[in-house]
């Protein structure tokens, strides 16, 4: 008999999937712009630039929803890795992913309505959402309004450091997305966590 517990309110699910869509669109168009090659365009440059700008502004809006929603509902507390033993719990989680799961061991810190994330998730999500994504958003906004970037820096164009932050931050987010989607299969069943992201109910 499976047990059901309600975990995710509608606003978080709506935010999550719109955010996911925006990130994927930005990643595809961003790669088209950065690796621009007239011979084999992923998305043609001017089209990619237009879509990237629109999706970027939407992402800024979604980020505002995320921050405000978290403050209003108190959901921000979920992202705070709580002592004691954060490092031990992270190591325990890694050990589970590295070997325990292959032996059929149970998930060491299954999600509960009080604690949605295991320690490793909390640390990763916090870093992505409050460090990396803001860096990408701010550098992206400067890219959108390059007149606000410094003219020159160390004898090179002032946009270069902005571009590097944007590029490296985006790369970290793309790597996160790949791992995040895969870790989504680590529920009680391969589909459990995806189902939860749509319905809000965790079945175990």
């Amino acid at each position, binding site marked *: 008999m499976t047990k059901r517990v309600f975990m995710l309110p509608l606003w978080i699910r709506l935010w999550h999937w719109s955010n996911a869509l925006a990130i994927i669109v930005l990643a595809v168009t961003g790669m088209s712009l950065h690796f621009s090659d007239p011979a084999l365009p992923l998305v043609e440059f001017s089209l990619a630039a237009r879509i990237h700008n629109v999706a970027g502004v939407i992402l800024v809006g979604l980020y505002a929803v995320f921050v405000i929603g978290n403050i209003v509902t108190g959901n921000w507390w979920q992202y705070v890795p709580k002592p004691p033993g954060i490092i031990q719990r992270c190591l325990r989680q890694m050990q589970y992913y590295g070997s325990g799961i292959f032996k059929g061991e149970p998930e060491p810190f299954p999600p509960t309505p009080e604690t949605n994330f295991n320690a490793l998730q909390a640390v990763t999500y916090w870093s992505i959402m409050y460090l990396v994504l803001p860096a990408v958003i701010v550098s992206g906004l400067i890219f959108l309004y390059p007149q606000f970037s410094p003219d020159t820096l160390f004898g090179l164009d002032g946009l270069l450091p902005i571009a590097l932050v944007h590029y490296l931050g985006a790369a970290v987010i793309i790597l996160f997305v790949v791992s995040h989607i*895969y870790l989504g299969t680590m529920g009680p069943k391969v589909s459990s966590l995806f189902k939860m992201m749509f319905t809000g109910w965790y079945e175990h």
Partner: protein
Amino acid sequence: MIGHFRKTLWRILVLLAVLAAAPALADDPPSPDELAKIRTGNAACMACHSEAGLKKPPKEGVDLKALRKYLVHADTYAASDHGQMACTKCHGDGYDNHPHAAKAREGLSECQDCHARKAMRIERQFDKSVHAENLSDTFTCATCHDAHTMALASKLRDPHKIVAQDNKICLDCHDSDLAFARIAPEKKKRPPIDDIHDWLPNTRLHWKAVRCIECHTPAEDKLSLSHEIQNKDKAEKKCATCHSANTSLNARLYRHLATEEQHKYGFINSVILGSSYVVGATRNPTLDFGLIILFAATVVGVLGHGLVRIITTRLRRSKKND
């Protein structure tokens, strides 16, 4: 047909004349003494033809309204391509005394008097340009190129300075109804320059970073940029022409710098980075490679992990069933 033949004959004659005169034209820069003499001579012209001269004309009866149209800035002139030449080199007969002779302008030297070979090459390009098509009678070298201020791109070197000089020429007419109407054919209305370029993101910033002619000339002349200015039908509209590893900017705005350091700090087209970060053109292949490897490793990593999970789950199941 006869006109064409005459034109060709004229061109051959000019070419022969130039070749014969080539040693004489390949002037060395003037010696310090000569230059001092030139500057003294020019100062006599500048006594009137400068802001100071306009404010305080050295003699009475100067037509100030006319003079205002013919001012030369001494420093700008000195830095220009013709800056070491005497005014009288071009302004010959009729300019010696004041007031200048009524028909003095007719005796003004033409550009091709000195730049014959260049003029022939350029004329062939110009004949195909949108300017020739619409205004062939009135459009001359001097419509765009002010001989008192122009400096060659190879001399300016700094892309920002080249862009500022060259785009000013285009925008002086194409961004001003007044100036446009002065030379445009009757009834031709000036297309609003921002509106027709609204497809270009950060339009005005583009115009600070690259020249109009980057897109509005064909890329065929190896010696310099073509003078075949093209309208929107033929102009370049593909962003990736500049925004790619093999950027055309190297053959255009950065042609005089393209031989310099190209891989500073590991960036391709790094010479462009000194003045502009060009998405797609100024990349660091080492960084790109590292990140692609990292991405591939992550994908292979999760797929491998998934595969091991599937295998171990099956093994456990079959063990349970045994």
